[in-house]
C-alpha cells in the first residue's frame, strides 16, 4: 500500500517543477482527493452498519443476552455458551454433517467446471460451444426455492419422473426426500447441476490467455490433443483453480445453508442438520429463542472457517506457489 501511495504524488498544478515523489505531504494529498473520500462515504457507512456492527454484536455470544438490557447491558458469562455447545450431544453430529456435506460437494463441484471448461476449449465449432454454454449456465439464474421445488416434483414417489422411470424396471417407488441416505447426494448433485456451467466461465477466461503459439509449438513437437490439454491448458488454469479451492476450503463450515433448510424435513435430519440450520432453529424457530447460545455457535463456525482459510492459504503459498494474499 505504501509504495502504491508514493507512486503518483506529483501535483499537476505546479507544472514546471521537476517531478519528484513526495512533492505533497500526506495531508495535502488527502485534501486534493476529498471528493474520492466523499464518494466512499456512503459505502463505508453501509459497511459499518451492516457488516461491522454485527461483528461487534457478536459479543452477545459471551453474554446472557436479553431484550430488556440490550447488547451492552446484558451480563458477561465468558465462554459458557461455547462450552455448552462443545459438550452437547449435538456437537459431533453437526460438525460431521457440515464437513461431510461440504467435503462431498467440493469433491464434485470443484473438478466438474474445470472439465467442462477444458472440453469447451477443445471444441472449436462455434455454434456448438455457444449452445453448450448457454444451456449449462442457465440453471445459475434459477432460485434456490425453485430448484428445490424442481427436486420435489421430479422425485415425488407417485408422480415424479424419477420413480416412473424406475418403475419401468420394476424398482418400487423410492421415498427420496425423507430418506437420510439420499439427502447428501440430492444436495450435491443438484448443486453440480446448477453451478457447473457458470463456474466454468472463470476457467474459460483463464484459457483465453493461452497463446495459440504455445499450441502450435506443441503440435510441431508431436504432442497429441490430450497431451496438449494436460501440458498447455491445465497449467494455464492452475492459479485460478488454487484460489477458488482456497476460498472453498475457507467456507467449508458454511454450506449452502438456504438449500439445506429447504430440503430438510424431520425424517432426514440425521444427515441434514448442519451448524447453520441448527443456529437458525435455536434463534427463530424454538419457543424461547436462545440468541446468545445461537450466536456462540455461529461465531464458532465463522472462526473455524477463518482459521481454515488462513491454513489453506499458507499451504497453497508454500506448495502451489499461488495464494489469495
Amino acid at each position, binding site marked *: 500500500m505504501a509504495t502504491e*501511495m508514493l507512486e503518483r504524488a506529483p501535483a499537476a498544478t505546479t507544472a514546471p517543477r521537476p517531478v519528484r515523489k513526495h512533492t505533497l505531504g*500526506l495531508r495535502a494529498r488527502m485534501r486534493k482527493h476529498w471528493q*474520492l473520500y466523499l464518494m*466512499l462515504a456512503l459505502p463505508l457507512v453501509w459497511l459499518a452498519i451492516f457488516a461491522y456492527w454485527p461483528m461487534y*454484536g457478536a459479543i452477545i455470544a459471551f453474554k446472557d443476552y436479553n431484550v430488556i438490557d440490550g447488547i451492552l447491558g446484558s451480563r458477561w458469562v465468558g465462554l459458557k455458551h461455547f462450552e455448552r455447545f462443545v459438550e452437547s450431544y449435538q456437537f459431533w453430529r453437526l460438525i460431521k454433517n457440515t464437513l461431510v456435506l461440504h467435503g462431498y460437494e467440493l469433491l464434485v463441484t470443484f473438478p466438474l467446471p474445470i472439465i467442462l471448461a477444458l472440453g469447451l476449449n477443445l471444441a472449436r465449432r462455434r455454434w456448438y460451444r455457444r449452445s453448450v454454454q448457454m444451456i449449462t449456465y442457465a440453471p445459475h*439464474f434459477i432460485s434456490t426455492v425453485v430448484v428445490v*421445488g424442481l427436486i420435489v416434483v421430479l422425485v415425488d414417489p407417485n408422480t415424479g419422473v424419477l420413480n416412473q422411470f424406475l418403475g419401468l424396471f420394476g424398482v418400487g417407488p423410492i421415498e427420496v426426500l425423507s430418506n437420510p441416505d439420499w439427502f447428501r447426494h440430492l444436495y450435491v448433485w443438484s448443486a453440480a447441476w446448477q453451478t457447473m456451467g457458470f463456474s466454468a466461465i472463470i476457467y474459460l477466461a483463464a484459457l483465453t490467455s493461452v497463446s495459440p503459439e504455445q499450441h502450435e509449438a506443441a503440435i510441431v513437437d508431436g504432442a497429441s490433443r490430450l497431451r496438449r490439454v494436460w501440458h498447455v491448458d491445465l497449467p494455464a488454469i492452475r492459479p485460478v483453480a488454487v484460489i477458488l479451492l482456497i476460498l472453498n476450503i475457507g467456507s467449508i463450515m458454511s454450506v449452502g445453508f438456504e438449500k439445506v433448510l429447504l430440503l430438510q424435513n424431520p425424517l432426514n435430519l440425521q444427515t441434514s442438520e448442519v451448524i447453520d440450520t441448527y443456529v437458525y432453529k435455536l434463534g427463530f424457530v424454538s419457543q424461547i429463542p436462545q440468541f446468545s447460545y445461537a450466536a456462540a455457535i455461529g461465531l464458532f463456525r465463522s472462526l473455524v472457517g477463518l482459521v481454515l482459510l488462513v491454513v489453506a492459504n499458507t499451504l497453497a503459498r508454500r506448495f502451489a506457489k499461488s495464494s489469495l494474499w
Partner: protein
Amino acid sequence: MTTTQAAPERESDDYLPAAVKETRADRIVLVCNYTALGLFSLAVLYPLVYVLSAAFSEPKNVQSGEVWLWPVGLSLESFRSIFDYDGIVRGFGNSVVYAIGGALLATALTLLAAYPLSRRDLPGKGLILGLFLFTMMFNGGLIPNYLVVDRTGLLDTRWAMILPTAMAVWNVIITRTYFQTTIPEDLAEAARMDGCNDLGFFWRVVLPLSKPIIAVNLLFYAVAQWNSWFNALIYLTSEHLFPLQLVLRQILVQSNVDPSQVRDVAELVRMKELQEQLKFSLIVIATIPPLLIYPFVQKHFVKGAMVGSLKG
C-alpha cells in the same frame, strides 16, 4: 463468445497447421469430447424441458406418467389458476419492486465504492480496501445480523429486503478491477489539468465508459434479489410484503395451499386437483423473469465478469 479477447475464433477444428496430419487418437478424443459436452447439456436441459412440458399438459396425463418429453394434451388450466391465488400475484409485484429497487441502490453503492478504490493515488486506499475484504472472510453471523436489522427499525419493512444486502463486496472487487483495466490513470490526471475535478471525471468520463460493468452489476443484484427468500423469512412478518419466493416455498416445498387465499370453495376443490400441476407452472413462471433478462446483458456480462474475475 468466450474467446473474444484471444485470437480471432476459427471455425476450423484446431490450431493445426495444414501440413500436419491429424492422428487417429486425436480424432477419437475430439469425438469423445463433443459427445461428452452433448451429454452434459442434455443432463442440464432435461429437467427444464420436462417441467415446461408438464406445465402445459393435461393434469391427468402428467399423473399417469405419459409426459416425459413433450406436452401431452395441451392445457393452460394451471396457469389460469395461478392468477386466482392472491399471494402469488402480490408476491410477484413485491419481488419486482425489491429487484428493481435493490439493483439500483446496490449498483450505485458498488460504483461509488469501486471507483475511488481503483485509484492508485488515493492515500489510505490499502486500509479501506482491507476493511472491505475482511467482511468477505468473517461476519457476525445470523443472530447479530438480525439484531442489527431489529435495532435500525427495518424489521418488517420493505427496506429490510433491500438495505442489508445492498452491497456485495465481491462485486465491488470485480467493478474495481474493471475500472483499473479500462480507465487509464493518466486520463484522470489530464482531466484534472483541464479543470475537471474527481466527481466530474467520474460522472462525465468514467460512467459513460462503464456501461458493460454497470449492466453486469444491475443484472447480478436484480437476480440475487429476485431469488432471495431467507431474509424475507426472518425479517418480514406481514404477508403483504412477502416476495414471490417465500410464497413459492409454501406451495412448492412445503406443499401448503392456504385455503383462505383461495376465493371460493369450488376453486379450492379444483385447486386440489390442480395442485401438482400448479407446481410445474409455478416453476415456469418464477424462472422466466431472470432468464428473460439475461440474454440481453449476456454479452456484457461474460466480458465484464471475465475481465473482473481474471485479474482480481
